[in-house]
């Protein structure tokens, strides 16, 4: 009986690996190729849950929520939006945190949001959500750079940890213009790396880009029981900002 069950399971796995259709989209393939390389990918809408607005009214602040924690022992999670001038949103090491993120992004036009998660067997799981928007979010300059307190507030923020059933949720927000540099006369100025630490041990390093909205907010989740998380934000101008509990 056990053998039959194993057989069924393995057939299902093989089928799901082979039968899943590929994404027939040149833009997707161009952007995904350097990430996926020679590895296999499967479309996995069931294990990667993506939430986007029904209509993204404010293209400067479009919330996205990704939960791929059903994929056990995943190693890396990459998010990108095909039709943004800067497609990459974030590239996260998720061996020691969960593949979960909530943040706000800018969208230049209606675009698919792609989430790619690398599992323990080196197979990429891919899921897509369409962000419907009138667009225009990438060619508008940051609003906060015009703020009088700009220099004082840069890098200040908030961090909080919430207990969920089997995990910790780390929620942070930081004051930063996240300037894309795409507006004439402005130069790019954004947080390009986030490091999540727990008692001086690095849990995750996250590469971020300027398509993450101004004064960004983040939610990450960790399986960890320990408390003392802190987050380090690095920007392309050499600043480092630390938010600690």
């Amino acid at each position: 009986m056990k053998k039959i069950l194993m057989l069924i399971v393995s057939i299902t796995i093989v089928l799901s690996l082979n039968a899943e259709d590929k994404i027939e989209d040149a833009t997707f393939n161009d952007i995904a190729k350097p990430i996926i390389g020679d590895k296999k990918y499967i479309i996995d809408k069931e294990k990667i849950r993506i939430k986007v607005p029904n209509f993204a009214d404010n293209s400067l602040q479009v919330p996205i929520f990704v939960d791929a924690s059903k994929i056990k022992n995943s190693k890396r999670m990459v998010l990108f939006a095909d039709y943004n001038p800067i497609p990459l949103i974030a590239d996260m090491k998720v061996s020691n945190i969960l593949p979960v993120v909530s943040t706000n992004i800018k969208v230049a036009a209606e675009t698919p949001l792609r989430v790619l998660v690398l599992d323990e067997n080196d197979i990429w799981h891919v899921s897509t959500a369409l962000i419907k928007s009138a667009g225009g979010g990438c060619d508008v300059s940051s609003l906060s750079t015009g703020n009088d307190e700009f220099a004082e507030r840069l890098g200040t923020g908030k961090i909080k940890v919430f207990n969920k059933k089997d995990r910790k949720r780390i929620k942070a927000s930081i004051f930063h213009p996240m300037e894309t540099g795409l507006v004439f006369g402005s130069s790019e100025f954004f947080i390009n790396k986030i490091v999540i630490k727990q008692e001086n041990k690095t849990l995750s390093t996250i590469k971020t880009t300027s398509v993450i909205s101004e004064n960004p907010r983040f939610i990450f989740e960790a399986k960890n029981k320990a408390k003392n998380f802190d987050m380090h934000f690095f920007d392309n101008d050499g600043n480092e900002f630390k938010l600690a509990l």
Partner: protein
Amino acid sequence: MKYLVFSLFFFHELLAYNLKPIKVAHNTYYVEGKKEYYSIENKGDISNTAFIITKESVILIDTGSTVDYALSLKKEIEKITNKPIIHVINTHQHPDHFLGNNAFEKANIYATEFVLNEIKNNGELYLSNMNRLIKESSYSTKVKVPNKILKNKKLILDNYELEILLFKGHTESDLVILDKNTKTLFTSDLIFNQRALATPHADIEKWISTLKKLKNLDFKTLVPGHGEVSYDKSVIDENIEYLEFLHSSLIQGIKEGLEPFEILSNEVPIKIKNYSMFKEEYERSIINLYKDYEQRY
């Protein structure tokens, strides 16, 4: 030639708006916008405009989302009266209330200093966004900045007296006009009658306290910024209830560490859900307000 005339006729029809002024008090009319979000089909006809016919002229309150809307409105007004539209008031900074200004070349256009500056500084941005949303219908529209500043006092236009009340809540500067001659209150977008409230520039707590003040005013007819005219003050309470629900669900969600979509999936009372456009506006509200509430709570 026949075909040319024919196609010109159709082209014109595409640009025209089907507007129906409704009389709500003596010499007082309003035109109800569709309870919809901007679309190519509705051509931006989504908000209310209103006008008062005085002895000498017409006072117009708000001008719609496009110049073509305002031109259609002008035609409708001309069917009712031959008095000139020479006084135009913009109630607040939102594009569905001022982008029609340019149809009124000879009129004085009144707004608060804040709204005047907002239109001066961001009018083009609002227009380009409108171009993206409703396309062709807005291509002939040009921004026209108000030329008269309104203060918190009586406004007398051709011997017709209006009380100007300045509030905050829906935006940083919301105008309420009380016409004591007919006991009509024009609330602008501080009131949405059975249409979900729009909150992109709102301060919910200020909005609630403003609405509580409106309840004390002496009026019989209430012309809202969106939705049907009301002859009953209960519409104010309904809006307070809606805003209090938004406020409390955001605070509760932030306290529990929820992200926007988790708050959106929480249970909503039937009464609130029944507002038209609830789904779209509620999503917009939670998303727009989330960041602000996260900073404050």
